[in-house]
């Protein structure tokens, strides 16, 4: 279908030549993602892909090639195009922007000209000045201040995008899935900002190369490492420290980057009066490493990896540790100046391990989810107005729900193997100056495989009626879903556009929790004969406008999303026990809709944004609330974020952010009764109440210290929750300790103020 669409354009092509190459930062050798390359004489242009590669095809002639990237000096090259040319350009950071803070790394008016919608990009350098919790910059925290993205709350690791659950976000680090993006029960993300180049978030209308989650894709790219000279940077904070090393393997040909972090929150626990607190272990560490090497002008390989681990222990009697490990091997190959290929072999692993050594029990349980993933992506730059992407992806998932060892060792819960595949094609097409489209189709499939695990049949009361087994590796059932993706942009004038998009996403892995808060022990389960693939159809419409040479941007986006095969829990569900989870779940439909407003100032001494989301998210599941529609836990009516950074002087930058959002929809009791002389609360309806609204102000200041030759350093101060509002982590109900005749509600907040100071250096 797609080839039919384009054959006329290809056939009509005259004698054209292709200019292609890589755009980099001159000082660091880092490739620049989204740098623009344009030919003014032809009024055409393109942007570099995630490997810094661009390709432009035009008629023979003499042209001026302009290369631009925000925060860099524009480079102009005069070329005479008589044959295919390779032009690699290194841009110099600088110009007037050097003293400013820039939020977006994309080309200035990308929000207007690009047909992609529901997308936000963050440049890591841009967030340097923002206030931080415990002295650690955190890209995940910043993302939660963008419209349509909602924090799961203090002490919770997840985030919610356009009404989707925390498990409906595909989080990729150099293409590898990160199953648990948080450290220390949500206080830190696993993404060490020293090692991260860029983050792009797609809110449900992602290009066809992505798939597997309903609500969003968070695509995070690691830095490649400086291929010009050796550098070190790091930071020392109150409870954590970091060190980052990078440099060339062979100058201009290859580089490495190693970045490590360690927290030592438990150092403070040693000061506690309580002996059992003193014996508590509580820390995490993580390591990012990346190598890349240019084998030839046409081939470059990348090897990148992440390893992180959290350790919590209570005096040797109870311990839990968990962590992600990912590895990505990539090979970029240029078949010809128009055809760019990337082949990836990707490994992802998430595990947790619980040890208990008390009361005569010395045992441990290990739970793992592991993926092996092969991916081939090709991009064919047909013409400046038309680029075709196509490829496939094959993932083998192995879920080990629980492997026991020790003196109390129940039989292991059997491994579940599954195989997820997808092929896709997608085209970026700009038929006229004002109109552009992204048209894509993804065909995904998921096969559940036989093995030691049980497949159940349930009656209408969710009791098991029979149990089936299938031979190891045998395909038990395959689900196939076509996922069309379509988005269009009509540019009204130079500074405004309207966009519309439709997309279908399918999700085959689901996360179950045994608690209203998120924990490292939340359980990933695979689609099977009972748990069906979740499906979402999202329509969105938006208006985008820039002012004053793109210094200011405003946008309004609205979305309507319907979801099928959504999962919620039966009353009294226990998902961490050895009971088959299939018997604990109920399935139904969902709907989410909302309006997202964003106003942003991208350049100047003062930068920042205001984002507001008005939304509704509901579920209808037979067996819950008399089969009526009810609010999903993450339903938030209002969500407001205000972020500002101001460059006071050459030395000082100050910043502040404020967030306000409607509390989660929660289940509270509507009565009470007595059992065995104890008051028990009586529940009538799921998610019928609201937690109190959440609001918080954070303040930050960064002082740049005197430079010594190559050595630069700064001190960051921040005050998290500046006015000390106690936001609830949980609300529980109890008998009044002072009056046995009464009951009361008690709110637990995790903190009031959290001041922090950290010292960062670079040389």
């Amino acid at each position: 279908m797609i080839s039919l669409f384009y054959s006329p354009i290809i056939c009509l092509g005259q004698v054209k030549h292709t200019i292609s190459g890589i755009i980099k930062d001159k000082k660091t050798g880092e490739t620049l993602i989204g740098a623009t390359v344009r030919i003014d004489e032809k009024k055409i242009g393109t942007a570099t892909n995630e490997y810094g590669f661009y390709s432009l095809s035009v008629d023979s002639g003499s042209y001026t090639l302009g290369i631009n990237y925000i925060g860099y000096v524009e480079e102009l090259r005069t070329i005479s195009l008589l044959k295919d040319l390779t032009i690699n350009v290194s841009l110099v950071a600088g110009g007037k922007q050097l003293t400013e803070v820039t939020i977006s790394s994309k080309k200035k008016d990308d929000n207007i000209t690009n047909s992609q919608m529901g997308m936000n990009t963050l440049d890591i350098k841009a967030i340097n000045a923002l206030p931080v919790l415990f002295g650690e910059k955190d890209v995940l925290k910043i993302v939660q201040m963008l419209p349509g993205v909602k924090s799961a709350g203090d002490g919770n690791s997840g985030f919610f995008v356009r009404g989707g659950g925390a498990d409906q976000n595909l989080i990729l680090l150099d293409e590898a899935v990160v199953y648990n993006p948080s450290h220390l029960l949500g206080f830190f993300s696993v993404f060490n900002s020293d090692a991260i180049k860029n983050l792009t978030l797609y809110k449900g209308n992602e290009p066809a190369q992505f798939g597997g989650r309903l609500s969003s894709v968070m695509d995070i790219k690691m830095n490649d490492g400086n291929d010009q000279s050796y550098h070190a940077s790091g930071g020392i904070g109150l409870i954590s420290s970091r060190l980052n090393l990078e440099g060339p393997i062979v100058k201009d040909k290859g580089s490495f980057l190693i970045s490590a972090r360690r927290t030592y929150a438990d150092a403070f626990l040693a000061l506690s009066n309580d002996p059992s607190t003193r014996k508590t272990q509580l820390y995490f560490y993580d390591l990012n490493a990346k190598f890349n090497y240019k084998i030839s002008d046409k081939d470059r390989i990348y090897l990148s990896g992440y390893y992180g681990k959290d350790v919590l222990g209570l005096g040797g009697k109870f311990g839990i540790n968990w962590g992600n490990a990912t590895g990505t091997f990539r090979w970029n190959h240029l078949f010809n100046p128009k055809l760019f290929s990337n082949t990836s072999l990707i490994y992802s692993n998430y595990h947790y391990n619980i040890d208990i050594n008390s009361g005569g029990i010395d045992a441990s349980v290990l739970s793992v989810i592991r993926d092996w993933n092969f991916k081939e992506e090709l991009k064919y730059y047909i013409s400046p107005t038309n680029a075709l992407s196509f490829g496939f992806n094959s993932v083998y998932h192995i879920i080990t729900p629980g492997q026991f060892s020790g003196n109390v060792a129940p039989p292991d819960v059997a491994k579940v193997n599954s195989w997820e595949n997808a092929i896709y094609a997608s085209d970026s097409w700009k038929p006229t100056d004002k109109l552009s489209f992204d048209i894509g189709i993804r065909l995904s499939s998921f096969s559940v495989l036989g093995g030691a695990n049980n497949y159940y049949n349930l009656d209408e009361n969710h009791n098991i009626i029979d149990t089936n087994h299938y031979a190891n590796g045998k395909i038990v059932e395959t689900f196939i879903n076509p996922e069309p993706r379509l988005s269009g942009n009509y540019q009204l004038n130079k500074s405004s556009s309207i966009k519309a998009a439709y997309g279908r996403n399918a999700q085959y892995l689901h996360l179950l929790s045994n608690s209203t808060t998120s924990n490292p022990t939340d359980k990933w389960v695979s689609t099977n004969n009972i748990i069906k693939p979740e499906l979402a159809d999202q329509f969105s419409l938006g208006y985008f406008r820039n002012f004053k040479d793109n210094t200011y941007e405003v946008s309004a986006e609205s979305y309507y999303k319907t979801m099928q095969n959504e999962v919620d829990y039966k009353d009294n569900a226990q998902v961490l026990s050895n009971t088959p989870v299939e018997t604990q779940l109920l399935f139904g439909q969902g709907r989410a809709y909302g309006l997202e407003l964003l106003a942003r100032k991208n350049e100047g001494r003062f930068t920042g944004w205001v984002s507001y989301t008005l939304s509704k998210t509901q579920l209808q599941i037979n067996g819950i609330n008399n089969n009526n529609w009810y609010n999903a836990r993450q339903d938030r009516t209002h969500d407001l974020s205000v972020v500002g950074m101001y460059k006071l002087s050459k030395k000082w930058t100050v910043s502040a952010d404020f967030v306000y959002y409607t509390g989660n929809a929660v289940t509270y009791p509507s009565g009470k009764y007595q059992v065995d002389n104890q008051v028990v609360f009586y529940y009538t309806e799921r998610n019928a109440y609201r937690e109190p609204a959440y609001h918080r102000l954070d303040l930050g200041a960064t002082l740049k210290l005197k430079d010594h030759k190559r050595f630069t350093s700064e001190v960051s101060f921040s005050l998290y929750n500046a006015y000390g509002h106690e936001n609830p982590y949980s609300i529980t109900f109890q008998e009044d300790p002072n009056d046995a005749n009464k009951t009361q509600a008690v709110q637990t907040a995790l903190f009031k103020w959290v001041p922090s100071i950290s010292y960062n250096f670079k040389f």
Partner: protein
Amino acid sequence: MNINKIFLYLLVITTFSSCQKVIKINLNGSSPKFVIIGNVTDEPGPYTIKITKSVNFDQDNVFPGVDNAVVYITDQTLNITDTLSEISSGNYQTHFLSGVSGHTYHLYITSDNNVFTSSSIMPTRVPLDSIYTQKSLFGSGTDVVPIYKDPVGVGNQYHIILKIKDSISSVAVYIHDDALQDGNLVSEALMNSIDIHSGDSVMVELQCIDENVFQYYTDLSATIQQNSAAPSNPQSNITGGALGYFSAHTSYRKSIIAQ
């Protein structure tokens, strides 16, 4: 071992400064529900069925008794029925029934056109070997550790009651089953929030309960802890829409003086 509690404990010490306060929440009212609590034990009778109604959250903890109900308990093994008498508001007592392990007991109640029924099988008795106290694993309290020998054969379920100084009952729900430790000598600590001093009397009652009652207590434990994924009412083994349970269980008590 409740993992959610441990995570909260760790979160609290992570942030060094967590704070709790009583807040005002407007909770909706609900129409009163019947609450039935019934126990038949292998100790000598009489046994009591207590029928009350639920109240709204902001009301006092005074739960009105349901008067003039008709209450029968039938020993289905012997096929004898005892008609209970109301001895005080909402409290109904047996006259001659005597609980025996292995017998099935059937409860029948009518009140204002409502009919509630339930049945429960009294399991075989398991004795307590001994109990002792130890310093708590978490925090600074005192744990009580009962020791009993689980009989060989999976399917034993236990409910344990802890009472200090004959008056203070632990609010935690202690339940065990033998799925993972069939035939073992079980010594699982009863964690509690009671301030136990040396010299206090410590009483532990080991009940052997049937499967439906075990399920009820499992749910009750989650309801009381208020941190399950879907807070809800425990699944009662009584039909007809009442809250509560009807349990035919054995009872074995032991007391010591805390060290």
